[in-house]
């Protein structure tokens, strides 16, 4: 595989290089996906533009309740970040579940989003956090909701020959919001998930009813899938196991997993998905102080 490699010092540099090689360059962060894609013929590039040395892209910051993760930040950095552990721990857990430590030390969240794979763990957690993606392009900067980054399986809305992701942002969770990330997997490392579910729940001040819930499921569609009907059914609903169980069944109807010879048939995934959604939502509720959920043993996370 022959291509040139350029380590960019600034964002403006990246844009300029992209302009100089229209359609022929690709942004590389960790590189764990792109080299395999090029080898398998899924992508091609004459020039790889490495963005990992750009200082602005390497920060994790919390400002006024808004968290900003630079596009070159690795899964390992997010997993270990006290900012993330304090304010959005489900993202730390999601990142920890990816690959292996060696991969997490190199692979970036932004890269994970741009590869647009259905089961990307960090993206699932970020969707539950209602994250936004900041993009720099030839015409300046834009911000899109995370789900808009997915055009289809393996198809990103972001064209890395003319754009680059600069940051991922979301609101920090406050102490009245709980969250959970659950992954069904055949192996605890180096395995794609059979299913993953992320939930963020906020309770009303009475602690007895939901204010809102976000439920995200994967790989049950082209990208992470929000269970919008189930979420709607929980708005102001009692935060009890029966209600959560019913919502979980509803969430499963919004999923469309395919059959995988390696990671479970569609029938199996449809059977197990409500279980995982139920467990994730219940675990999220359990984190909210003053909740009235009686959980017994069954809401134990996997």
């Amino acid at each position: 595989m022959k291509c040139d490699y350029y380590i960019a010092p600034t964002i403006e540099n990246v844009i300029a290089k992209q302009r100089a090689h229209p359609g022929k360059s690709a942004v590389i962060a960790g590189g764990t996906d792109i080299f395999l894609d090029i080898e398998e013929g899924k992508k091609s590039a004459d020039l790889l533009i490495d963005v990992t040395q750009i200082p602005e892209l390497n920060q994790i910051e919390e400002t006024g309740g808004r968290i900003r993760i630079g596009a070159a930040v690795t899964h390992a950095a997010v997993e270990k970040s006290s900012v993330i552990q304090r304010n959005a721990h489900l993202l730390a857990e999601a990142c920890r579940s990816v690959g292996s430590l060696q991969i997490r030390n190199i692979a970036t969240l932004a890269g994970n989003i741009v590869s647009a794979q259905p089961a990307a763990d960090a993206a699932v957690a970020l969707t539950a956090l209602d994250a936004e993606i900041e993009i720099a392009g030839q015409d300046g900067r834009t911000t899109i909701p995370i789900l808009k980054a997915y055009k289809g399986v393996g198809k990103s809305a972001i064209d890395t020959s003319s754009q680059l992701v600069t940051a991922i942002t979301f609101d920090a969770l406050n102490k009245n919001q709980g969250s959970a990330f659950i992954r069904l997997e055949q192996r605890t490392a180096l395995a794609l998930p059979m299913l993953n579910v992320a939930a963020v729940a906020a309770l009303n001040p009475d602690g007895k009813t939901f204010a809102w819930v976000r439920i995200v499921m994967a790989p049950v569609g082209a990208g992470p899938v929000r269970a919008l009907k189930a979420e709607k059914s929980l708005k102001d609903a009692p935060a009890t196991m029966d209600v959560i169980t019913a919502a979980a069944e509803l969430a499963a109807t919004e999923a469309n997993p395919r059959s995988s010879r390696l990671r479970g048939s569609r029938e199996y995934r449809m059977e197990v998905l409500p279980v995982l959604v139920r467990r994730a939502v219940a675990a999220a509720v359990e984190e909210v102080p003053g909740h009235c959920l009686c959980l017994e043993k069954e809401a134990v996370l996997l």
Partner: protein
Amino acid sequence: MITIHFILNGQPVKVEAMPSDMLLDVLRGTLHLTGTKKGCGKGECGACTVIMNGRAVNSCMVPVAKADGARIDTIDGLGDPDHLHPLQEAFIEAGAIQCGFCTPGMIMAAKALLDENPDPSDDEIKEAIAGNYCRCTGYTKIIKAIHIAARMSNGKGGV
């Protein structure tokens, strides 16, 4: 061809390589350092683990251009027959070596862990080496060895 400069096992080196060559091939091929092993070439087995700027990485997935200006530590620079690193001593003492093919990568992953976390728990050890595949040992004595090395390094004495 490009020229890459990095610090390898504490010494400055300069290599000529194609930009898309992987660090592993440069280490084993150009630099003739065969301590780091190739088990899969796709970042799935950890046999090629080296420490880059203090972090364990799969060198088969690191384009060598990324190594420019980096600090790279490999098994080839760790210990010698008269002065083994505590991890090397511990692996031998615990019986954590069988065929030995995973050992270099495993030791480097363990070293990266202990450099950052000198007294890890079982779970922390398992997480650190979960990307280092071994078929011989069942990992049991490897985990024990890392505990022994941690104790040795902290001056608490071996088991």
